[in-house]
């Protein structure tokens, strides 16, 4: 596929993107800065677990227990808290970096960066939604872009009819997205493995062609949205305010997801991925939990679609294309499936590499730069292969060393 044929999602023309800006912008590092002091609640968790550990270690009765050498080491609550802090560090770093982006963009006078990072966050949000079923639930959905489209078209079609209230856009998007997700999930979750992949893909294609057939709403060409969704107290025309809205939504969704994957529901979801048969034998009717997870996951992507439509002021069938569904899966794999922030890191890597390679701003010999620019997807592919081969838990897993924790 050539660079031009690839649907470029949600790139905001209104934010004044051009190559010159892009090249200036590269001097700013978007790297994560470490910080301290988030999620003290994790500390209690670990402290309690370790307390429990020392209790159990002392009460060791006879029998074959003696045969097993214990790997446990007694730990104090203090080191538990430090371990928890260390685990919270990457999340804090990512969000601090995201908070700093508007300030830096303002300082250097590069609002282009806001649009780019907003796009990363929106795709990251969609990927995080997908990750709920893909990473935690083990359900490989190749049709989640469908929900991105439902979110975007809800904004587009309602705006076309003069409805501009963001609340209405979001309510309709979630209602339709929810209804579709329940129906589609109900059918898809009767299958598993390859069949599940194919059937989710088939549903997404149905919606893709539905969008193409909507001639009155732009059909193939997509639908330009005249006005941003109107949200009381916020002016989405303002790139800074829009950025903060996206960041806020992302933070809330990540926070809720963190609670969710560690809740009873999350345990059932993760258990069903590891060993569905055993879950049934323990007495869990797994279908309903997996369906609930699928619907939740779809709703997060619908919200991402709502934001995407507002970023690009555009709704296009390409938002529902299977390549985009594949891109979302790729972002999860790239960043680290089954990690809370992996999909966001994956989305960042995805978008930034796309920008970097297809623009190739480095001072290379012209022939080489041209080669990279025209065949950037090839180089991108090599990068993905390398990550998959050498970082089994993705970039995020590699960055957080060990990366065994579920968050």
């Amino acid at each position, binding site marked *: 596929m050539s660079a031009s044929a690839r649907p470029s999602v949600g790139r905001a023309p209104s934010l004044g993107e051009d190559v010159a800006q892009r090249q200036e912008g590269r001097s700013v590092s978007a790297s994560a800065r470490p910080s301290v002091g988030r999620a003290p609640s994790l500390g*209690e*968790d670990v402290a*309690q*677990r*370790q307390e*429990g*550990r020392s209790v*159990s*270690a002392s*009460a*060791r*009765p*006879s*029998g*074959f*227990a003696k*045969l*097993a050498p*214990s*790997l*446990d080491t007694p730990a104090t609550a203090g080191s538990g808290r430090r371990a928890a802090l260390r685990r919270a560090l990457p999340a804090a770093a990512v969000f601090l970096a995201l908070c700093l982006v508007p300030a830096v963009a303002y300082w250097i006078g590069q609002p282009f960066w806001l649009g780019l990072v907003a796009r990363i966050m929106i795709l990251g949000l969609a990927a995080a939604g997908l990750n709920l079923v893909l990473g935690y639930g083990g359900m490989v959905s190749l049709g989640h872009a469908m929900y991105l489209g439902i979110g975007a078209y809800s904004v587009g079609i309602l705006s076309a009819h003069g409805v501009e209230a963001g609340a209405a856009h979001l309510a309709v998007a979630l209602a339709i997205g929810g209804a579709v997700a329940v129906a589609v999930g109900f059918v898809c979750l009767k299958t598993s493995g390859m069949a599940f992949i194919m059937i989710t893909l088939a549903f997404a294609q149905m919606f893709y062609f539905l969008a193409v057939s909507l001639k009155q709403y732009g059909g193939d060409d997509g639908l330009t949205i005249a006005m941003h969704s109107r949200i009381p107290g916020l002016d989405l025309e303002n790139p800074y305010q829009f950025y903060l809205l996206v960041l806020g939504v992302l933070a809330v969704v990540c926070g*809720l997801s963190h*609670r*969710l994957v*560690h*809740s*009873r*529901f*999350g*345990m*059932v979801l*993760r*258990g069903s991925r*590891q*060993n569905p*048969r*055993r*879950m*049934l*034998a*323990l*007495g*869990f*009717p*797994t279908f309903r*939990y997996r369906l*609930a997870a699928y619907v939740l996951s779809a709703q997060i992507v619908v919200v991402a679609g709502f934001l995407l439509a507002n970023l690009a002021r555009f709704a296009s069938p390409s938002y529902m294309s299977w390549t985009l569904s594949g891109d979302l899966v790729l972002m999860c794999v790239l960043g680290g499936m089954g990690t809370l922030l992996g999909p966001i890191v994956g989305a960042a890597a995805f978008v930034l590499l796309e920008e970097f390679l297809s623009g190739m701003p480095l001072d290379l010999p012209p022939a080489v730069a041209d080669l990279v620019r025209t065949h950037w997807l090839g180089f991108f592919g090599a990068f993905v292969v390398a990550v998959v081969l050498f970082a089994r838990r993705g970039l995020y897993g590699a960055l957080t060393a060990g990366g*065994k924790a579920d968050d």
Partner: protein
Amino acid sequence: MTDILYASGLVKRYGALVVTDGLDLTLRSGELHAVIGPNGAGKTTLIHQLAGEIAPDAGAIVLKGRDITRAPVHRRALAGLGRSYQITSVFREFSVLENVMLAVQARQGHSFRFWRPAGRDAGLAKPAREALERVRLGHAAQRRTGTLAHGEMRQLEIAMALAMRPEVLLLDEPMAGMSRQESAGLVELLAELKGLYSIVLVEHDMDAVFALADRITVLSYGRAIACGTPAAIRCDEAVRTAYLGEGND
């Protein structure tokens, strides 16, 4: 004693192969009922049918007076059927404690709880720890399950079954692959559990079976060729012929 679980006229065919052939089995309340037989006699298939993973082609299964022949696996589990698998079936990425906590969670009603961390839920952790202590695996509670030795995983299987607070335990070769020492530990444990639960035990270790069982059913080619006390089975001519290969002398 009353029959807590019985199967009558169970038939399971795979094409021309009849794996379960008109099998009757009764489990009395509180007894330990061993099922033995040569490889391929249909022991595991029987357990699968009792637990609901395989639907019988004919026959009925009744648990506590209720016909569960067509009930799905999870409903049987909630009705009081706990089981362990012949091939270890646990959650390798969870800690040992989390494995058992899931079992506790299963019987505590629905799991549509999205907010409170399950890991800090004493309502789950306490019974789970008790089950682990019971099988003498308490020391390994925080270990990642994938790092356990084989024998420990077998113990964990039983802890998970116990945490379901079942009335009937279906144990499919719990000693498979265990060292002699580990087996001895498990025999000790099963002797403790005996009487507290009604147990169907499929096992190849004859020393264990004859030491533990109240009654033994011998399967051969999907049929029950004998059923009785260990002493009676030991003397049974048909059993010697079919199973112990001692019929010719």
